[in-house]
């Protein structure tokens, strides 16, 4: 078998050449993450739990998953997933709920249940996305989904660049027009040229905060880079390299330090995981950098941000969080004061932590922090055997998804990332890609292997 050949078991009935509704719904969900201001869209119809648009989409996916499971009984493929694929997620959810159960008196006495309820609803939505994507995606679908992520991120980056240049947020404006019969859309928080007293510009793309759009672009960058690296001809390689350059420009134009840090760490993660692959693209990267500096020096304003006075104040704010968290940590060292109790609107009692790890330590304690780290690192352990796979279906998407998960881990140290849903949804999508890349698929009729365990084996080429 040639190195670029594809196992017919893996490629049969794969998205986008499939009538299975779930992969199409998942693609639509990805498009919503990158193109719609999901946090700002509020449905005009009342839902049982929440009228937020992302919860509605997740509920739709869950219903479709259940219905498909009941209707389609004859599966053609059996998937063997690697051991422990859900361990990180399960540990985090268990610790989160335990922290709530043990702090019930405090949470209800301080009237925090309403906020906790919303955070738990988001956590359940995240779990649902992770589980359903993991159980639904096929190995042959990973590459098309990698392409989709890279294309969507390129569109997001272009829209963000346009937002910076024109002051108009296309994502919010378009969503407000298109969804007007069914949903209301909050106005865009875009502020391209604010007064000095108002702080730094707010270039947010489809999100509510510049750091959030920077995160999703940084997490999507590995997909464009990997596609460039494995492109079969020069034309496609150049096109994917251009897409990667646009994604980097979109992240940089938000004028946040994270616009430099997150993409840089995503590339560094790829270099550590697969140095040869990235070195192949080094000449394109250097040429692109020189061209970008020559053509649009303003795009690199993130670097100037490092020395600005209000940027230094942001650093001081971050360091001030450390001593301020000590009383809460000492009061509840193991399970914290309860998942979801950190309420950014109660500024007199709660600090806005520019670091998700600190926020988790406060809310779910030391055990929760370990579980949160496990949640981020578990996909990397799961996917490690698929990273160097020669299969074009597994190796490249696995590498991109692993680097994306690491980028999420870095972004978590830069702001309260779970407060903005896009990046967590994308993280769990890429974590699911890691699990799928490490899974084995066999025809359902073929007797399953005996007990030796699911050592995920790459397709032989």
């Amino acid at each position, binding site marked *: 078998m040639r190195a670029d050949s594809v196992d017919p078991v893996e490629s049969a009935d794969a998205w986008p050449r499939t009538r299975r509704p779930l992969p199409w719904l998942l693609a639509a969900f990805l498009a919503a993450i990158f193109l719609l201001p999901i946090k700002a869209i509020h449905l005009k119809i009342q839902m049982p739990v929440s009228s937020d648009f992302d919860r509605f989409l997740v509920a739709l996916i869950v219903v479709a998953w259940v219905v498909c*499971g009941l209707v389609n009984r004859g599966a053609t493929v059996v998937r063997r997933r690697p*051991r422990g694929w859900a361990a990180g997620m399960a540990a985090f959810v268990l610790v989160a*709920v335990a922290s709530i159960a043990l702090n*019930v008196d405090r*949470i209800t006495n301080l009237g925090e249940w309403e906020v906790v309820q919303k955070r738990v609803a988001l956590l359940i939505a995240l779990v649902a996305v992770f589980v359903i994507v993991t159980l639904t995606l096929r190995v042959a679908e990973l590459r098309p989904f990698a392409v989709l992520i890279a294309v969507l991120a390129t569109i997001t980056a272009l829209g963000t660049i346009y937002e910076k240049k024109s002051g108009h947020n296309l994502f919010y404006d378009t969503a407000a027009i298109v969804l007007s019969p069914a949903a209301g859309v909050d106005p865009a928080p875009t502020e391209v040229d604010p007064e000095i007293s108002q702080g730094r510009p707010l270039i947010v793309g489809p999100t509510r905060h510049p750091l959030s759009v920077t995160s999703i672009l940084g997490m999507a960058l590995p997909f464009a880079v990997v596609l460039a690296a494995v492109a079969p001809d020069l034309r496609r390689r150049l096109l994917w390299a251009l897409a990667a350059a646009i994604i980097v420009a979109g992240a940089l134009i938000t004028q946040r330090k994270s616009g430099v840090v997150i993409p840089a760490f995503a590339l560094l993660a790829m270099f550590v995981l697969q140095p040869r692959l990235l070195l192949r693209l080094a000449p394109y990267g250097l040429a692109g950098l020189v061209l970008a500096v020559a053509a649009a020096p303003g795009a690199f304003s993130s670097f100037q941000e490092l020395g600005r006075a209000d940027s230094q104040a942001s650093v001081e704010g971050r360091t001030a969080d450390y*001593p301020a968290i000590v009383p809460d940590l000492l009061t509840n060292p193991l399970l914290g004061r309860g998942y979801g109790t950190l309420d950014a609107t109660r500024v007199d009692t709660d600090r806005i932590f520019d670091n998700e790890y600190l926020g988790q330590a406060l809310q779910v304690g030391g055990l929760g922090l370990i579980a949160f780290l496990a949640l981020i690192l578990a996909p990397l352990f799961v996917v490690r055997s698929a990273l160097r796979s020669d299969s074009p279906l597994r190796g490249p998407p696995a590498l991109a998804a692993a680097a994306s998960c690491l980028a999420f881990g870095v972004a978590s140290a830069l702001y309260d990332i779970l407060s903005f849903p896009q990046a967590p949804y994308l993280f769990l999508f890429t974590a699911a890609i890691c699990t799928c890349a490490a899974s084995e698929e066999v025809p359902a009729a073929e007797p399953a292997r005996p*007990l030796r365990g699911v050592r995920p084996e790459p397709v032989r080429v």
Partner: protein
Amino acid sequence: MEQARILRALWRRRALVALGALVALVAALLSVNRVGLFPPSLEARTNVFATASTQILVDTPSSAFVDLSNETEPLQTRAGVFARFLTSPAAIALIAREARLPADAIEAQGPYEQNLPPFQQEPSAAQRSTQILGEGALYRLRFENNPELPIVSVFAQAPSREAAIALAAAAPAALRGYVERIQERQHTPAGRRVEIRKLGHATGGVVNEGAGRQIAALVFIVVLVGWCLLLVPAQTIARGWRGEKGQPRLGELN
């Protein structure tokens, strides 16, 4: 499809799933109740509470707000001072007497200045330590002060609506009594006396009714799902221990 196979696998082990449901039920009950053994009792851990609010206006005897020639700035300064006083132990004792509650059951916080940027309002470690000490109190008062208005906002929390309204109403009454006693003692002329007025009656209602049920339901679902997830590796280990072969592992179905 996978979900049908998972359900079938769980149905085959329905006795263990039923045991899991029992464990989840116990966990749910324990999460929202305190259990006493001698004598056997079940006491709710969740606090249904009510809130009420009112506002205190610091004014002049002839009301500065109906006469355009009056400056309100001195009154704003006084409102700030009174807001600070209201969180002091002396003021809490007066409020407790007005509301007919024990003073040590009341926790007062503030004054929080409105219109400040968040980073100036965020609590330091010392402030947070004080807040943590008072988090267990059932009767809570919170004062907010807008530096541009001679008004102190009072927010009260108590286990019932009536108690919350009584606590909120007690704050302006206690402050008025305190200020009037000082004015009497100092023989302050009637025309130069500060007037403490209550802006309307305290209003409120029950806030988190049903929280206990929701928390118990959440715990039940998560424990049951966790139990079902644990059945998978447990079954694999058990089968490995017995040396069974030739059958797909449950782990393959999850």
